[in-house]
């Protein structure tokens, strides 16, 4: 079976860049908000509807009567099992059981978990007998094909380049609106061309979706029921009109929201693929056809609020993936219908539990049996406009890339060390018998120790995903985040097995596991890579925790690798000999960065942003290299300097708003800004405070210095001090302060 990708519209279509573009008060949607039944229903109703759909009790689900299937079938009936054959043969059981698949070829299309698809609505409200994959017609001549078409950013209609008045030579850069939308925006009346009589306007799937006649969803899992019907669990997408906030001015035309509502649908109702993309993918996909959508936010159907989709969203999911749902389902569920339904209930924690939980509010706790509920409640009612519609200036971009939180695209200057770490870990994973493996990494704060290790692990992970590496298990622990050193056993055990036990029990299990090879959880014999950050925090009085942990790798079949990170160079030497002999063999030093490296780090981050003078960067990196060589410090100084410059520019703009003089040259970070930032970071503000302190405060300070010099002692009594102050005041004919006043000032100044 050839995977037939949904044929992209034959004419390359230009798409708008995802620059938030605010069309004037809904030019293209005459009926302001058209809500579907799906979202107007209360969650409970929603559930009942879903339940109707699931029908686990019925032997033959057959929702076909509700689903008016009028497609001019280019394929024979999809229910014939010959057509729907699983691509990967994992059927090790009788066909009477429920089977889960990763990929299914159905009706000529290949669907996999994680794909986005169009889904028919239940009633099939306006089910035109039309093939949805037909290319779109031009809005003027109503013919498809025959030249390049351009898409209007406001109404999303397609136009031939030659049909537009005046005709266009090539696809224009930036935003483009068709003459009709332009006219509407300006308030002129301009009739859109009517289709020739007898020809019906065909709507593409995209248009139907945006008019909420079609749904979009993302396939979460695919399965075959015992009776042979194929079902998919999907996560719905929704269009902005269907949310509680309605379409907001900054919404893009092609924007969708991912919801947290899950549903079970039969494969039959799936129309074909569409492509919902993250902002970054969307920006790159300019020629990917008509079925491309933009998705940046998740919409909570119960609480009606929005949340940004995390950039590293896929991580937990891919983590679960290799633990193999097909295996799981096939092996563990030896199929009664009872068990199946149980599985069902467990399987849908997100939708149902949350609904139930919202009703009984007392179950939402900050922590309940180690799991945190109620977080879905947090979200913003409306996406604030400033987030989307804000054009960043060069300085603001610079500030954003200089953030400590931003992951740099590349880690310059640490290639050698990273190479060493990755060979170490690879060695340990690939060899069958890894014995006594322990790497100690040391270096002053801010030299990229943890970051390098994590980068190496990310790289290995992608290698594993491509199949070049054996499966392994990676555990990361930070010593400073443990409540007490002993808790580390608890954490390790929880990560390995998923259960929570007391630390003594955990220690017992872990020792059994590592020395006797007893199983914990499912990943029995995978190699374990244990990263312990801030290792020195694990020191106890008799150093038993460190000893226990470092003793495990020496056991014959432990399969454990430990990477320890700490600041002090001679930590192994400070420990008991029996520990240092286990740890101190393989070491890696992260030296402080020198100024060239710092400069490289900063410039690599600022690549493509023209906001800093070169000298300024060099100055900052030289200063930091001379003080500490801390990369965090250098980045912070540069960011602070950018803030100073930005502040200056903004103040200037405020002042000059009326006169509007050109100040383009002002938006650079210059030496003075760096100087200010360094002053703020490295200098204690004592001098300035002393300058501003009241007169008698200064007198007292002077008298104190005088007394200390005279007596030669380290401290001075107030009695003596007062005597000095009084005598000075007497000599200089100053007004004598009262004894009590003096005492008060003394107390105030006692910093």
């Amino acid at each position, binding site marked *: 079976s050839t995977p037939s990708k949904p044929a992209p519209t034959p004419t390359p279509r230009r798409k708008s860049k995802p620059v938030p573009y605010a069309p004037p008060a809904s030019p293209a949607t005459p009926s302001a908000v058209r809500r579907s039944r799906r979202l107007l229903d209360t969650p409970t109703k929603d559930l009942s509807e879903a339940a109707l759909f699931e029908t686990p009790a019925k032997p033959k689900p057959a929702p076909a009567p509700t689903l008016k299937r009028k497609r001019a079938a280019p394929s024979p009936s999809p229910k014939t099992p010959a057509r729907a054959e699983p691509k990967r043969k994992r059927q090790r059981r009788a066909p009477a059981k429920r089977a889960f698949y990763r990929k299914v070829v159905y009706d000529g299309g290949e669907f996999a978990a994680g794909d986005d698809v169009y889904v028919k609505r239940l009633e099939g409200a306006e089910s035109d007998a039309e093939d949805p994959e037909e290319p779109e017609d031009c809005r003027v001549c109503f013919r498809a094909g025959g030249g390049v078409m351009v898409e209007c950013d406001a109404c999303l209609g397609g136009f031939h380049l030659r049909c537009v008045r005046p005709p266009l030579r090539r696809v224009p850069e930036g935003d483009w609106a068709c003459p009709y939308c332009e006219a509407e925006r300006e308030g002129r009346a301009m009739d859109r061309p009517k289709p020739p009589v007898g020809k019906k306007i065909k709507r593409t799937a995209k248009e139907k979706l945006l008019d909420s006649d079609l749904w979009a969803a993302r396939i979460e899992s695919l399965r075959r029921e015992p009776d042979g019907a194929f079902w998919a669990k999907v996560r719905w997408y929704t269009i902005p009109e269907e949310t509680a906030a309605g379409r907001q001015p900054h919404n893009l035309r092609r924007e969708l929201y991912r919801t947290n509502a899950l549903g079970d649908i039969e494969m039959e109702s799936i129309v074909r693929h569409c492509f919902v993309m993250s902002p970054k993918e969307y920006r790159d996909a300019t020629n990917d056809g008509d079925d491309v959508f933009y998705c940046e936010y998740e919409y909570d159907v119960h609480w009606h609020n929005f949340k940004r989709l995390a950039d590293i969203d896929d991580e937990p999911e891919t983590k679960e993936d290799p633990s193999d749902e097909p295996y799981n389902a096939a092996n563990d569920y030896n199929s009664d219908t009872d068990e199946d339904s149980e599985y069902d209930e467990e399987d849908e924690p997100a939708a149902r539990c949350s609904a139930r939980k919202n009703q009984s509010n007392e179950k939402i706790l900050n922590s309940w049996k180690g799991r*945190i509920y109620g977080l879905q409640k947090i979200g913003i009612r409306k996406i*604030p406009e400033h*987030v989307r519609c*804000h054009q960043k200036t060069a300085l603001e971009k610079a500030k954003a890339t200089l953030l400590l939180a*931003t992951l740099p695209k590349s880690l310059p200057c640490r290639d050698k060390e990273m190479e060493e770490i990755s060979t170490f870990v690879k060695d340990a994973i690939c060899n069958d018998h890894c014995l006594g493996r322990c790497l100690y990494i040391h270096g002053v704060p801010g030299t990229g120790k943890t970051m390098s290790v994590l980068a190496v692990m990310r790289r290995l992970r992608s290698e594993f995903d491509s199949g070049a590496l054996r499966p392994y298990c990676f555990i990361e622990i930070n010593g400073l985040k443990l*409540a007490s050193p002993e808790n580390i056993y608890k954490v390790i055990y929880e990560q390995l097995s998923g259960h929570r036990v007391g630390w003594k029990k955990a220690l017992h299990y872990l020792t059994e596991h590592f020395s006797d090879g007893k199983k914990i959880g499912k990943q029995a014999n995978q190699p374990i890579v244990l990263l312990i950050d801030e290792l020195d925090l694990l020191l106890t009085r008799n150093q038993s925790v460190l000893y226990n942990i470092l003793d495990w790798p020496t056991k014959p079949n432990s399969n454990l690798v430990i990477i320890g990170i700490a600041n002090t160079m001679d930590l192994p030497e400070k420990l008991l000999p029996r520990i240092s002999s286990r740890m101190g063999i393989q070491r890696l030093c992260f030296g402080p960065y020198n100024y060239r490296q710092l400069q490289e780090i900063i410039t690599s981050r600022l690549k493509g942003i023209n906001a800093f003078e070169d000298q300024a960067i060099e100055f900052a990196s030289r200063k930091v290299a001379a003080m500490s060589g801390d990369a*965090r410090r250098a980045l912070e100084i540069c960011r602070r300097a950018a803030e100073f410059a930005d502040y200056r520019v903004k103040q200037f703009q405020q002042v000059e708003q009326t006169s509007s003089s050109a100040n383009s040259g002002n938006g650079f970070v210059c030496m003075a800004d760096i100087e200010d930032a360094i002053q703020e970071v490295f200098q204690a*503000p004592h001098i300035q405070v002393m300058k*501003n302190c009241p007169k008698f405060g200064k007198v007292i300070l002077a008298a104190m210095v005088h007394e200390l010099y005279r007596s030669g002692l380290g401290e001075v009594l107030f009695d003596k001090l007062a005597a000095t102050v009084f005598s000075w005041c007497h000599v200089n004919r100053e007004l004598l302060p009262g*004894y009590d006043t003096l005492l008060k000032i003394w107390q105030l100044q006692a910093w």
Partner: protein
Amino acid sequence: HAPPLLGTPPRLLPSPAHTAALSLAWRLPGCPSSPSVALQALPVAAPPPSSSAARQLTPMAAAPVASQAQAVLRGRLCDPAFVHSRLRSSPDTNYSKLKYLVSSSVSEACNNSVLLLGPRGCGKGAVLDMVLEDLKEEHPDAISVIRLNGMLHSDDNCATKEIARQLCLEHQLSFSKMASSDDNTEFMIDMLRECGLAHKTVIFVLEEFDLFAQGKQRLLYSLLDAMQSLTSQAVVIGLSCRLDADQLLEKRVRSRFSHRKLLFVPSSLDDIQRLMEHLLMLDKDSSLPTNYVTEYNSRLTSIFSNKKFKGVLDSLTDTDATTSNILRFLFRVVSYMDMESGFLSMECFTDALSSMQRQPKMDSLQDLSILELYILVCMNRLEDKEQKSYNFNTIMKEYKSIQDAYKTSDKYATTVCFRAFEHLLDRELITFADTKGRNVALEYRPVKLLISSRELAQSLKLNTTCPV
């Protein structure tokens, strides 16, 4: 004893714990924030004799107008937002710098950590409150503030619990007291992530920041480390009067801290005068009668240009030029307002100054009887002899020896002396040397002086009834 005008303070110096509790009481969220608790406890002094000119001007309606004006002025002085509202307009103040910092991290989704440093009473907290209030108005529903105080939450477990509690409160989640500190930390990190995804900024305000920098600083570490992840959107604002607060941080924590510092210093003389004008001048369009307002303002301007006023201001700022001190002074000034005419006069300022510069120990020394002074002198002599520990009986022996040496006539019986001794103990001019031995009779417990010999000598000089 004639009680002094404002009454002797019950304790000479309020103990640190007491003041701390007081300052906590009005800084903690939930309590109505008004710094006036201390101020309003002041008894209002009797008005000085009124000036005849004023009586001619407004014969009958003056009194209600005066009390009205006084109420307006007092309301202003107790409202920190009004006191600092002048800062809003100018670009170079800490207010606008802080606001820029916080608002840029709200709108640009970045993390920041700031330290506000400066001596007590310089308006760190007030400015911060103003900034937060303004930002909450500008970005409704996008900011949640978590307030911690070093005095209460310096313990890590307790602090994470409090953070979890306040986060739950902000987002209407229910909070479980039973959660372990690990759970709470995890909850905090999860919440930070979720809030970041929802474009909400969490602002942590850590008052008495230096007290958080004790021990392993686990709280600060986990806070600042959570802020290094991409999705979080948080600001940590530390308030401290220790100028080297950032040097107290452990090196790992310091490396994660972004060193923004804003320094608050006592304002200069010009600024103070401008602040006074801002606070005391009445508005033209207030509910008060217009002719009264103009008269009041013109009198005030003439006072401000007076040379004597400059002297008053100098001696006030020589000791303490912080904003809170100025406010305390002005409150007294307003309290001294002539209630018949309703105008402030030069006397109000001078009286207020003298009441600010009271010497409570001196005052109570001058009220002592001859016998009590005798006892103090005896104790002083004993200390001069470098006798380390002495009690009532030793003092009586010394008293006898003075009697014998100078052959004075005023000789009192031991019981009378003991009464005087007890009285001194009550006034806290002397105290017991140690806290143990509570069951020992008073006469035998060792005591010590609480005043220096210089003060004693000065008070003897000033005391007119004292035989020389």
